[in-house]
């Protein structure tokens, strides 16, 4: 039994027994959805369907349905791609890196954060597919032995690396998530009455994978978790590094930057934690998880946001410094144009949302207040979207030859597809919140006696 210092804030509030935890976490799965869930679900579903229509329209007529042009060949598509991939990162960091660092507070949030990762990566993976001029030939990007002659993929291309990075990341994340879910599925399986609800029983029986709670099972569970955490940790860094190489290996001023891999990884964690907060602050209220996802959890995350946000700020300033220091006029103009050119408002939004606003978290009152945290997390989400937009569009729209300079403006289809992915994301997340145990209760129970508030008060002295 681990012991925890009493001056540390408790991670589980209230006088909870193991059974209380089981009941409370199983409740959203077993009970009926409330009004708010249905409203949110239908709103998301409408957005999602609108996005599907926009995608169908694009595939039916051509990429010309978007606002792109001969100079700016990527804009919202790849902005959205990087944004969603970035959002996914917090999940893996929480479940893998924090596991290795033995951060117990991750237990309340890792399940949902990982769900967010998977749903986020699913949105992200959509864009490389639909941004293709001929998506029906998307299988060309896989190294499939073929009959076309000596055709093979180009391993020099960072887009190729993306294919592998994202598919690996997605696979590992899903496996890791699922392994963690097994004891919790077993818990639901055991609670479902097979006579009243045989289908549900059957389904959770399959999902629980024959879990019996034997000591041997627990031991294997712990080992696999550790191994997978070890596997997933490098992915936290590699995926976004590789995504950043889409830009870093090019010759376009503003893209061709060696600082991109760490800068993108930190940015991704930054945006990921913000999204976790956005989701959890709502979720803890809607499904009554206030006892498990406490203000302390939020504060921890805010501290990470403050740190990564500051690092991102350093990266922004380093970019500017390097542009000046390089003495390359194209590089210098690219950054000058970002800050003062026609897209200055995007740069200003990015700077404000990502660098200035997170600094408010130095103030304890703000970082421990749920309302301010929620508002600030939205700012960070917006800021990080703008960061990708700034990198992609402002670099492309004015590159080497001024004769080719132009601007970009999104069409309704661009906007529709983005909103559609948001809708899709929430549809998945809302379905998840009604069918999956949203907190890793099996793990959480392991810290009840060391970090539960009542136990900390000394009730548990044995």
């Amino acid at each position: 039994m681990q012991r925890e210092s009493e001056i540390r804030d408790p991670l589980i509030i209230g006088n909870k027994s193991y059974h209380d935890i089981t009941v409370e976490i199983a409740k959203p799965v077993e009970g009926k959805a409330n009004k708010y869930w249905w409203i949110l679900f239908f709103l998301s579903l409408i957005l999602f369907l609108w996005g599907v229509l926009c995608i169908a329209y694009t595939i039916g007529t051509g990429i010309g349905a978007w606002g792109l042009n001969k100079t700016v060949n990527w804009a919202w598509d790849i902005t959205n791609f990087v944004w969603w991939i970035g959002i996914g990162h917090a999940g893996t960091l929480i479940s893998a890196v924090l596991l290795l660092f033995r951060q117990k507070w991750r237990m309340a949030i890792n399940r949902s954060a990982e769900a967010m990762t998977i749903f986020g990566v699913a949105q992200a993976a959509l864009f490389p597919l639909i941004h293709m001029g001929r998506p029906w030939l998307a299988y060309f990007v896989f190294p499939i032995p073929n009959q076309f002659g000596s055709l093979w993929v180009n391993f020099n291309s960072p887009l190729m690396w993306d294919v592998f990075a994202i598919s690996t990341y997605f696979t590992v994340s899903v496996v890791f998530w699922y392994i963690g879910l097994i004891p919790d599925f077993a818990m639901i399986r055991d609670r479902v009455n097979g006579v009243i609800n045989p289908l549900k029983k059957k389904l959770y029986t399959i999902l629980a994978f024959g879990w019996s709670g034997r000591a041997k099972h627990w031991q294997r569970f712990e080992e696999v978790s550790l191994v997978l955490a070890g596997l997933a940790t490098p992915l936290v860094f590699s995926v976004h590094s590789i995504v950043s190489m889409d830009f870093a290996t090019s010759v376009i001023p503003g893209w061709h930057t060696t600082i991109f891999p760490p800068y993108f990884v930190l940015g991704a964690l930054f945006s990921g934690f913000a999204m976790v907060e956005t989701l959890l602050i709502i979720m803890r209220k809607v499904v009554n998880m206030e006892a498990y996802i406490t203000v302390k959890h939020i504060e921890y995350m805010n501290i990470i946001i403050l740190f990564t946000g500051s690092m991102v700020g350093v990266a922004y300033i380093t970019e500017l410094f390097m542009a000046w220091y390089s003495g390359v006029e194209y590089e210098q103009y690219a950054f000058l144009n970002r800050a003062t050119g026609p897209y200055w408002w995007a740069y200003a939004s990015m700077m404000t949302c990502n660098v200035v606003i997170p600094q408010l978290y130095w103030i304890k009152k703000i970082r421990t207040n749920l309302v301010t945290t929620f508002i600030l997390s939205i700012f960070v989400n917006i800021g990080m979207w703008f960061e990708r937009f700034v990198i992609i569009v402002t670099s492309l729209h004015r590159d080497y030859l001024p004769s080719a300079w132009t601007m970009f403006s999104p069409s309704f289809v661009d906007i529709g597809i983005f909103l559609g992915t948001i809708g899709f994301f929430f549809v998945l997340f809302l379905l998840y919140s009604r069918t999956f145990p949203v907190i890793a209760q099996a793990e959480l129970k392991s810290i009840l006696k060391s970090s539960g508030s009542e136990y900390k008060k000394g009730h548990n002295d044995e």
Partner: protein
Amino acid sequence: MSEIKKYWKSLSQLNEDPIVKRLSENEFVEELPVDKFLGDKKNLSESQTSRRDFLKFLGFSTAAATLAACENPIKKSIPYVIKPEEITPGIANYYASTIYDGYDYASVLVKTREGRPIKIENNGTHSNARVQASVLSLYDSGRLQYPLKSGKEIDWKTLDNEVKNKLQEIRNGKIILLTSSILSPSTKQLLQNFINKYNRVEHAMFDSVPYDGILNANQESFGIRAIPSYKFHKTNIIVSFGADFLGNWGANNYASDYVGGRNPKSGKMSRHYQLETNLSLTGANADKRIQIKPSEQAYLLSNLYAALNGSSADKRLKSIVKDLKKNTGKSIVLSDSNDKNTQLIVNAINQKLSNYSKTLDISIPCYLKQGDTERVHSLIREMELGEVSALITYNVNPAYTLADNKRFIKALKQVNLTVSTSSYNDETAELMDYVAPDHHNLESWGDAKPYYNYVSLMQPTISPLFNTRQFQDSIISWAEMNEVDYYSYLKKFWSNKGIKWNQALHDGDFNLSESKYFPKRFVFQGKLTDNKTQDKNIEIALYESIALGDGAQANNPWLQEFPDPITRACWDNYITISPSTARDFGLKNWNISNGALNGSLVNIKSGNISLNNLPVMIQPGQANKTIGMAVGYGRKKCGKAGEGIGFNANNFSNSNFITIEKIEGEYEFACTQLHHTMMGRDIVKETTLADYIKDPSSGNERLEFSTYKGKLPSNKVTLYDEHDLKTGHFWNLSIDLSSCIGCGECVVSCQAENNIPVVGKEEVRKSRDMHWLRIDRYFSSEMTKELAVEEKISAIDMFSEMEEPSENPEVVFQPVMCQHCNSAPCENVCPVAATTHSSEGLNQMTYNRCVGTRYCANNCPYKVRRFNWFQYAENEKFDYHMNDDYGKMVLNPDVVVRSRGVIEKCSMCIQRIQDIKLEAKKNGDKIKDKDAQTACSAVCGTNALVFGDRNDQNSEVAKLREDERAYDLLDHLNVRPSVFYQTKVRNKG
């Protein structure tokens, strides 16, 4: 009669056995047992179709019906029954011919494939974008497809009878033949037959853009109504007052001579002064450009003449006077004025400088312009008075081109018989009683004598697409001549003059041996003027756009989408106005959120003529307090592509002063270049002639980079393994920025050769033009990096001021196509290896493999890659030639038509290279330099584009690569392009 042999199958047949006989009469030897199962009523009624059987039948019949419906649609392609001797499928034939439509003239080679003309090549001379595009006008389904009577279809026989009857009935009134300038000697003789046949026939000619001033002046000065021939290559000084001789003024073959006289390598470069109102293509190439108002021209020419005779010169003319005095007999002064007196002064100046018969020659006249606008005016008066009984038009569209077209249209109602021979149901033709549509140039026989002693022949390269008839054949029919057709007439005409017909037809042209024309002695009778204009008035100067000229080919989508070399806008005409005058009137140009250009609207008025809702294009270089407007637009009847594009500026062709009124609203332009300056970048490298002579590599300093080996130029610093470029061919293209005048002929040539789609105004506005070859145009800016350092201006202010071009900018043109980098950024990033490097130094695009990620386009530093945003071929939304059964016939069968979703770009005309390689292989020869040509280099009249094999040490391109002026665009990137540029040399004072 021979007997037919008979064979027997058996002995019994020979013996005529009755059994055999009976059997042969009966097809079915045994009776089919039909009765058995049909007759057995009982069984039949008892047998039933089970549910399973029913489903089987249903399934079978559905499947059979479906399969039958799956048959491929039948496309009518009729193979040759007897293959014509000269046509081998897959092999192109070339025919020498002539393009002349009353405005543009060129001697050309027509490339045909399987009997279809698909491309125009130059026959030794320079032409222009419109001549290049004329092959598409051949396949214009908007042309008239049959003769018309009052707008209804009619057959030729009825038309001929009715026209002849009506012509014969005419007793008192005149019969007028109204035509463009006629270059054809045989047609002129033919018309004489017509004139003799009927009473009071008169032939009047007029040009859509009048040249009466210079023609009448030469008539008075030298006794000949013609334009002199100019020898620009023999000049040291060229002073042009408004004459856009590199663009549309006069003949279109001046550019080769002009550039020939400006070769920095030889050390001789003529100095070119241009004094003009609108910024023309010629002005953009001038060494010194002075902005003047149109009304100042007469004064300045008078002043120049006086100054050459010793009096003091206007301060704008001081250096010109000095230069001209130093170079007597080695200069040309010319003017675009349509005022006889002004042209007389020009003649006097050239006479004074003893230029005649040295740099310009009236004894070798040019007959391209013969029209008499005054005659047309008197004709309208006669028509109004009812003195004209019949009007036959040919190659003219007076209801569109005349300034007082409304009066013409009204007067036309007084004429009893009106016949148009236009190949379109155009503004004039639709008002006529009869339209006897003419063939297109490429379907016609003909001849042209554009210059003294020189004749070029026109021959058909395809049998007529529609039920049209050549104008000359119509005349033969109406004059009831004893001729089979115009072809035999033409052949006889020249054979009688001792011309070897077949040889002449093969060459396309021949020289006559007429005695030289001796002009009468020149006596100056013009009036000098010192009338300067009042500053208050806004003056107007019309011009013909490089894209459309006089507008005859307005329905040609290639030309509509051809970006103007100066404004870079297409699908429009507009008012050009100088930045400061625009400020005075509160007129603006601005870019909207997707970059597209919008502009203010104005109404203009001159006397009782007015035009409303005209868009304003702010044009640096335009003289203050003046506006320019292009004619050729605003066609109301020309076919679907050109109708309703722009406005008709011809109504203002007699106006000098106008008033402008700004109105509410905005206009949407389609501009292919939205940014006009080089932003202080080293994109077009420039030097002056003086510096060049001192140091040939001046202006062409290569950047050096610090490495561990010391300072090295960019091409010595690399991480890449080199491609082997020494083995085999290494195709290179040199682009001489001193020789390129920006005419854009190559742009249309490339479009024709490579099946480049037309995307329309809305798409161009979204910056989605598809041209593989573009000609970037940059203006100089007042702000430079040096100035910013000197005046301690911050970088932010410097760059924002650099975006503004000067009010009187220097202009550079830079053709940019795929640079075929040998370390290509696009090749690295393609995930599916759809763009790869060839062993001959070319960057190749495999359309079939492309999935359309557009990563390559993003990573291209030159931004030359083009994406098929939509399906451009066979798509109703892009209703241009690729969506038209006739228009599609212009497509080059050697080049694939790209589907949507793939990237395309310049291939260095790989199909042409491959063709030449195979030809050489077949013959066991080596490829000779200049044999392989790209579409752009083949048509470049100024030799600015030189293509060839760099591994061939003797090739011109290999030598140019070693030239001190050669440089790579964006050389610091070290992408090692196979395309390189030669620095621009200006002969500044």
